[in-house]
């Protein structure tokens, strides 16, 4: 059984239309879910826009845990709008992803930025609800907003 076929069901449980592509470096686990390195998961929009990518989730390592949990290291989540424009990029050194609930959380650091980089926020400790695309950062929140305006320098 190849890695793609083995890991895909876990991610599919978290969200419809989720496709999983795993790079080499996969090791079988007793529970049937595999340990993956340098993986990428691509989610597409629904039937009306099947060719359009909705999100790309990647990580350096995915460690399966009991209860449908995955420990993901070096998480990167990119979210696209229906016209293909990059809307959000989320980075976290490590988090736990509940494949049944579609929820990611961590007591660690998190960084989020808009596609154009003009809105950036970070903090410590987070909960991400995938289906609702809602994010809670529980500590030390700092947001940077650049609106592109300029100021006149008086001589």
């Amino acid at each position, binding site marked *: 059984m190849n890695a793609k076929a083995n890991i895909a069901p876990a991610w599919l449980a978290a969200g419809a239309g989720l496709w999983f592509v795993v790079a080499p470096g996969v090791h079988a686990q007793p529970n049937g879910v595999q340990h993956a390195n340098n993986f990428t998961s691509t989610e597409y929009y629904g039937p009306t826009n099947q060719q359009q990518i909705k999100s790309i989730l990647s990580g350096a390592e995915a460690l399966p845990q009991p209860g449908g949990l995955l420990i993901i290291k070096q998480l990167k989540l990119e979210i696209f709008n229906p016209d293909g424009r990059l809307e959000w990029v989320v980075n976290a050194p490590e988090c736990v992803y509940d494949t049944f609930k579609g929820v990611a959380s961590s007591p660690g650091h998190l960084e989020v930025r*808009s596609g154009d980089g003009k809105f950036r926020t970070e903090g410590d400790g987070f909960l991400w609800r995938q289906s609702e695309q*809602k994010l809670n950062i529980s500590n030390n929140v*700092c*947001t940077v907003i650049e609106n592109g305006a300029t100021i006149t320098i008086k001589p």
Partner: protein
Amino acid sequence: MKRHSLVVLAVLGGLMAHAQTNTPGAPSAPRAPMLIYADSADFDLNGHEAIYRGHVRVDDPAMKLTCALLVADVPQAGGHPNRIVAETNVVIDFTDTKGQTNHATSDKAVYVYNVQDSVTNETVTLTGNPVMVNAQGTQAGDVIIWDRASNKIHFDNPHMIFRQNLNGTSADTNPPVTAIKTTNFPPGTIENIDKIIINSSP
């Protein structure tokens, strides 16, 4: 009423600068970003809304704001927040276009930004016991609206507040003589009163 550039709390301070018109030919530089700090925050990436809670602080070159709760539009790519609401113990310090410092407090402040017919509307509306302190004195009103573009501050039902300490001298600024006369008490004879509110004409 059409409000040109409303007030800005600017949390929007950064925002404030956005409404400014640069002098043609004058050198310009990128505006420093606005920073928002808070204990915690909720982001709705679909709804493009951010809710900041606890020790919220907004640092902007044009203003500083603190409050307990801040709800902000998350701007679309390259866009500008259209609405920001600050609630509970709102404190705003800003410098107007004339270089005058202002200190404002209120229960709630609403920043609104929009562009209609090429006219930028940008305002900050303070409600809930709003008070503004500047070199002209301390003024309160039912509602205080700061129009950033015209650099005007509008007070609904305005009244001046003079704080007087127990030895009869003003703790803030010296009130106009006419204002003192309205109390019918000579300075120095009022005891156990630390605040006099005098209605003034708009």
